[in-house]
């Protein structure tokens, strides 16, 4: 123990060590401030939005029309369009991503991996605005020539949804492959030793064992699709439209936010506040998905690490 006499190895006072540690701690704490900041801003401006006499909460949540001119602020059209594009994206991205992941984890030779992994990395690194251009100049004409120009409008949610699917494909493939590879080899060996074929082992033993890791991946991809902006801004349409037809134009939550804020907005108008209210909705949805995904993922890693 520390004695009263000066000890040759006594503790030297090093104030600058503590200062450095405190500064670094503050840097880390900044991240909390960012989250708090996001929360405060979104809630505050949303409050102003709902306080405006032209807006009522139930009208917002259940209303089927968004026409600020006639004071209708129902956000269902925007939510519906977001929903449509995201579902289409998942229908394309999840099966393809999963199959690519299985191929990478179980079947691919080193040569094949050497080609495929860089391709996925390149796809993942391309900015979303480029995907938006692709949706407008390639996917939409493709859909129009496949299904006819009368059926498919120039701006439509299907085109945007499909390209968002391509956007999240590398992310799903990479994360799903990690989950599948995390399943211990012994389980596969046990299945083979019982006379299982490779595909039976993959589908009936490996995939079920990796299920929570896979679910976490899919939720994260869905969250990404919902928050995607530039693809829908370019290709889906500019104007809220409640429709179940993916070949028609409709504006998503993100598309709306970017359109309004890109224009002339005065700071205290209903329009200005509305983008924050919608931002809050978007934030809450993606936050929920992200948290569930993280919880599932943690459980998965506890099992296998």
């Amino acid at each position: 123990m520390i004695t009263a006499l000066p000890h040759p190895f006594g503790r030297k006072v090093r104030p600058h060590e503590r200062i450095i540690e405190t500064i670094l701690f503050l840097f880390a704490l900044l991240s909390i401030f960012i989250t708090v900041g996001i929360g405060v801003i979104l809630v505050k401006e949303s409050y102003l939005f709902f306080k405006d006499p032209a807006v009522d909460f139930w009208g917002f949540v259940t209303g089927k029309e968004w026409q600020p001119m006639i004071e209708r602020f129902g956000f269902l059209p925007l939510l519906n369009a977001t929903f449509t594009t995201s579902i289409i994206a998942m229908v394309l991205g999840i099966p393809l991503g999963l199959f690519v992941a299985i191929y990478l984890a179980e079947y691919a030779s080193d040569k094949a991996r050497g080609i495929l992994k860089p391709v996925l990395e390149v796809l993942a690194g391309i900015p979303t605005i480029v995907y938006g251009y692709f949706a407008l100049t390639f996917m939409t004409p493709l859909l129009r020539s496949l299904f006819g120009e009368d059926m498919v409008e120039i701006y439509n949610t299907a085109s945007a949804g499909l390209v968002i699917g391509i956007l999240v494909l590398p992310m799903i493939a990479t994360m799903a492959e990690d989950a599948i590879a995390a399943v211990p080899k012994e389980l596969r060996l046990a299945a083979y030793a019982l006379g299982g074929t490779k595909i039976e082992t993959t589908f009936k033993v490996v995939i079920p064992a990796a299920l929570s890791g896979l679910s976490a991946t899919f939720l994260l991809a869905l969250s990404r699709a919902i928050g995607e902006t530039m693809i829908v801004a370019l290709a889906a349409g500019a104007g809220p439209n409640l429709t179940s037809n993916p070949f028609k134009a409709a504006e998503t939550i993100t598309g709306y936010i970017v359109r309004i804020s890109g224009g002339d907005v005065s700071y205290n108008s209903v329009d200005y506040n509305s983008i924050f209210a919608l931002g809050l909705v978007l934030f809450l949805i993606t936050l929920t998905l992200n948290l569930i995904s993280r919880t599932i993922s943690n459980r998965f890693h506890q099992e296998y690490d």
Partner: protein
Amino acid sequence: MDTKFAFGKTNEVNSLMEKRRRNGLVWHLVFILSTSLAILFLILLLFSILDSVFGYTALRDTVSPTVLVPGKDHVKEFTREELERVVTEKLSSGILRRIESEKSISEHSDKELVSLIEQYIVKPKVLKTWGFTDSLFHASEVEAFVAGEEDSYALFRSWIHPSFFVGDQSSDPLHAGIRTALLGSLWIMLITFMFAFPIGVGAAIYLQEYAVDNRLNRVLQLNIFNLSAVPSIIYGLLGLAVFVRSMESVTSGSLFTSLTDNTANGRTILSGGLTLALLVLPIIIINTQEALKAVPDSLRMSSYGIGATKWQTIWYQVLPVSVDRILTGTILALSRALGETAPLVVIGASTFISVDPSGIFSKFTTLPIQIYQWSARPQGAYRNIAAAAIVSLLILLLVMNSAAIYTRDKISKKKRLES
């Protein structure tokens, strides 16, 4: 040993095996097809962009060169004397004055005079554009179109050329350039780096080296994960409310200078850079943490063992070993910032500015936003310059990613040589 042998007779077993094998083959094919589709998507993506960059353009001159100098179809054929004459006679007085204020007509090179005449006098207008494949395989369509439109001619050109990189913004697609947007992007990346790098690396050092596994730090970790998955447009909203609006006096620069410019507002490079700094901060933190985790504990232990303090250990032992991965990750985070569009649109990047950004309080536009604006316009030629701008962006990203990989390899080679 055939008690309760309910697995079927030999031929049943064999046919079952065949079925199982066939099933396996079918799925194997499905997997290969999916993989091929993924590769196909990439090819299609790149192809559709490149296709719009090269091809035929049908043009019609507002004033044909032969009107200016009879007998000569191309301005390039004019003699020096003819060039100077046409410029001084035909150029509008306003433009002429502006040009002469920089340098006199006789000081301009031939090439510059040619470009002036083409841009302001001849003024070719784009009638229609064709992509690369169309130009190759449907050249007859091009000919038919030109024949049908009077005074028109078709040129096979590339929409990406040196003056594209250094040219001004222009509402005429033929003369539009990305210089302003490019500079805006670079300025923003600089600000983003200056804020996000020290804070991000510092926070990561704290979380990885100092923090004990208690409740607060687990919350911090979870929070950073959440921030990394927040849609980028939310950061735009945050930046709009905080940097552009609340901190307007700071970000517009009016606090620091006696700006009498009435149009000063918070939609500046500083705001944009700060917003993107917040966006890439979680990425840098997570990446740096991974780099620090990879440093073996034995290194730290041996450093403590000779009596070094924690910070000494970090600064002199841990960081030097992990600096390559930290830098690589930071460059990759910056390339992510380069490609971001939505947050900057929300905080109010300018839609048309004619002056280059001169400092952090300037208004700005960026390359992705330029691409967005051009892509959104239906007229054919805008599609082409959007594609050209995309190619520029991709080249820039390629350079950055290569720099990242090069940095990592060079530093790790240096480490191996030293050890």
